[in-house]
């Protein structure tokens, strides 16, 4: 069904008003040789009942299991209230709030979202969202190069390699140089980092907790960069900020994150939401929309999109970014999620992740042949080191419906497994994981 309201009779009447007798008169200005003849080779239309059955049947081909995969996408719990609110068509069928009089719901929600992300990170300004963590990070790097008029970006080797790939794509034709800061024991040494900073360095990019799950020495790096020209870009995990030091407290100039963990499901990788915050002094350089408070003609509080002269629809090729569509509905989800779990809830969820991941790590490292690959503290994710390749071990775990983690072989570490534990994992599941791992390795 093409979802068309008008009947043949309606269309006939409308054609009369237009003053044409056939549809083809309306496209007469398209040269005939350009017209497509015949039917598109796609399946014929299905009724809703048939589509419903078809797609549910396809969905059943995906395998369900207990998820210990992370690496930028996490199996956190999504409260029912989030679905109830984002499922309201007042939110999901509305457009970008360019017309403030009929968009106060979206504008105020974005404003609250921005305020809550500022509260979470300790940063001064936050935009209305980016596509996802990786492109948010890439835009932060571009901002830093433009702001400092320098062209070298120092990148921690402990950064999520997927974010690194996106960054490489974004800078590919911009004559910017990416320099990797090597890891030592799965974290970055601030001294080593300091030795690589020079007069061309525009930014230092660090991730906290890093890709391997470990905590970096962000305070020392923040102090190191304090008062210096290169911008400090921190990529954080929003849930971790329930208990660990936020970017605003270690002098980050720009803080970005993957916000999928704030009330959104894994959805096979998207849509997600990029969080983008910065110090006030950078506000005119940041990409994307920003909602602000204004007063209407009666002196009442209202909300509007602000500082739009940074954006593509006004500034065209001189805009700070090309972003237009962002992740609006997921900003609504994040705002509802943060409002609902609240101040103490975030602390509790973060502590559950911390306790449960340490419980599992402790059980697993009791098994001969498994140890932690790094030494620094970790939050909800950790990297295991095996004596041999991880692949056969994973196969065994998978066959027991335990998705045990991400095989780091694709990043050249075939004997390492990245394991994530969220608040959703129960002690029973953790014990089962350890038990099957034990029997896989020891027999």
């Amino acid at each position, binding site marked *: 069904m093409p979802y068309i309201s008008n009947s043949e009779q309606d269309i006939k009447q409308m054609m009369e008003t237009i003053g044409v007798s056939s549809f083809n008169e309306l496209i007469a200005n398209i040269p005939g040789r350009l017209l497509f003849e015949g039917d598109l080779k796609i399946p014929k239309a299905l009724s809703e009942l048939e589509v419903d059955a078809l797609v549910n049947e396809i969905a059943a081909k995906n395998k369900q299991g207990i998820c210990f995969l992370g690496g930028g996408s996490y199996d956190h719990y999504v409260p029912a209230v989030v679905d109830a609110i984002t499922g309201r068509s007042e939110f999901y069928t509305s457009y970008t709030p360019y017309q403030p009089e009929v968009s106060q719901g979206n504008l105020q929600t974005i404003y609250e979202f921005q305020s809550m992300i500022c509260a979470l990170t300790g940063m001064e300004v936050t935009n209305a969202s980016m596509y996802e963590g990786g492109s948010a990070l890439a835009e932060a790097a571009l901002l830093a190069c433009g702001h400092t008029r320098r062209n070298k970006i120092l990148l921690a080797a402990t950064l999520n390699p997927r974010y690194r790939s996106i960054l490489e794509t974004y800078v590919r034709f911009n004559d910017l140089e990416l320099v990797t800061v090597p890891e030592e024991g799965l974290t970055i040494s601030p001294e080593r980092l300091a030795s690589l900073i020079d007069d061309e360095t525009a930014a230092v990019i660090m991730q906290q907790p890093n890709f391997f799950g470990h905590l970096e020495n962000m305070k020392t790096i923040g102090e190191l960069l304090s008062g210096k020209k290169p911008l400090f870009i921190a990529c954080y995990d929003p849930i971790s900020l329930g208990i660990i030091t936020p970017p605003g407290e270690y002098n980050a100039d720009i803080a970005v994150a993957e916000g999928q963990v704030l009330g959104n499901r894994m959805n096979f990788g998207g849509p997600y939401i990029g969080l983008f915050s910065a110090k006030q002094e950078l506000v005119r350089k940041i990409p994307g929309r920003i909602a602000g408070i204004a007063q209407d003609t009666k002196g009442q509080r209202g909300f509007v999109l602000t500082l739009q002269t940074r954006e593509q629809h006004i500034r065209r090729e001189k805009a700070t970014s090309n972003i237009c569509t962002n992740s609006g509905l997921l900003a609504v989800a994040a705002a509802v999620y943060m409002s*609902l779990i609240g101040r103490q809830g975030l602390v509790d969820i973060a502590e559950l992740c911390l306790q449960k991941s340490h419980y599992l790590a402790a059980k697993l490292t009791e098994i001969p042949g498994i140890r932690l690959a790094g030494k620094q503290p970790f939050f909800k994710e950790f990297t295991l080191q095996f004596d041999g390749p991880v692949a056969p071990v994973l196969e065994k775990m998978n066959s027991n419906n335990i998705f045990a983690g991400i095989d780091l072989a694709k990043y050249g570490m075939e004997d390492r497994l990245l394991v994530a534990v969220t608040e959703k994992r129960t002690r029973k599941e953790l014990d089962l994981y350890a038990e099957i791992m034990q029997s896989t390795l020891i027999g």
Partner: protein
Amino acid sequence: MNYTQLIFELSKPGRRGHTIPECDVPERPVEELLGRNHLRRNAAPLPEVAENEVVRHFVALSQLNHNVDKGFYPLGSCTMKYNPKINERLAANSGFAALHPDLPEQFVQGALQIMYELQQDLLEITGFTAITLQPAAGAQGEFVGLLLMQQYHRNKGRDRKTILIPDSAHGTNPASAAIAGFKTVTVASNPGGMIDLTDLQSKINDDVAGLMLTNPNTLGIFEKQIPQIRQALDTVDALFYMDGANMNALFGIVRPGDLGFDVMHLNLHKSFSTPHGGGGPGSGPVAVNEKLSEFLPGATVEFNDGFYYFSDNGEKSIGEIHSFYGNFALLLRAYVYIRSVGAKGFRKVAESAIINANYLLARLKEYYDPGYQGVTMHEFVLSAEKQKQRGIKALDIAKRLLDFGVHPPTVYFPLIVKEAMMIEPTETESKESLDYFADAMIQIDREID
């Protein structure tokens, strides 16, 4: 009780909106696990609000939004069509929603099948030979298209720096070109609202990497000189990009790949009925012909011997543009839409979109001057210049329309029409809904005197 106060104003210390499970593993002191240095001094000052109050707050806010399910939303070039409910229900299926993107291919065959079939269908609809579903939005699709152009020329051992863009283009076109490392040169429109071929010819040189064209353009006019533009570009081996924001007008009527374009992006959140979500998320697949296929980003799904799998990036790929495979849950909605509309339905979509636009134009053109004469495609531009001379600007008309419960059209764009009002009714609106809007516009015109 005013629930539209700020959520922070509804907050009271000690209130909880959600219960968190108790810890079921032996707990160890947090300082011991993380070290004192890493601990946050004070909890993040998030609001403290009870569950029912959170619900009332956001429901109250939602009611302040105009939305497609409430009424007419004729924003030009935004394609605010109806968003089918079955799309939403199926996208929420936990068989997809709970799927981690790093799972091995054999566990995600259903998701890969959706992506594979969607690729095939979009290629058939657009007439191209290869596609990436990775871009998260139209502007990111443009960016990918431009990087493909960079790579194409580099691969031929040359460095081209210029992208040609008509003056009627969306702002994202020049902005995307700039971040892809290009400078932009504007091509003028002719009195008919199409590209001025003489101006184009004068700007063609061996620094031109390509031209970006929205078709139908933002005036709602089909650029019938495409063969001539193609010819001009061919003289310097420049590429031809189609901004597919207005694809809704072309379904089953023409295929951009057949027209001679080398690359285009689609906006699944416009033409393929996935919701706009108050500004996103969207999805902007990029389709190309043989010239550009080897440069595409990764995450393309292939099918062989009953098994779906991701193809490897070739050496010449521009690299990844998204952490995973694009906005999968939106790809899924578009898949559901394509299955629902079916082979013959797409042409009906385009026909109805074009008839609806021409009907509105016919009803309004005596009162407001059309930006350009003649029939239109799926949208059209009116000028309020005549009204302005009587003291009422396009912006005033837009604001007055709000009193009628309809969303105003896009105003002051495209830039080449004075006091522009850009109107796109979409195929899903009924005649009554269009009449209501036309009557309101006519009444507003009468109110001026």
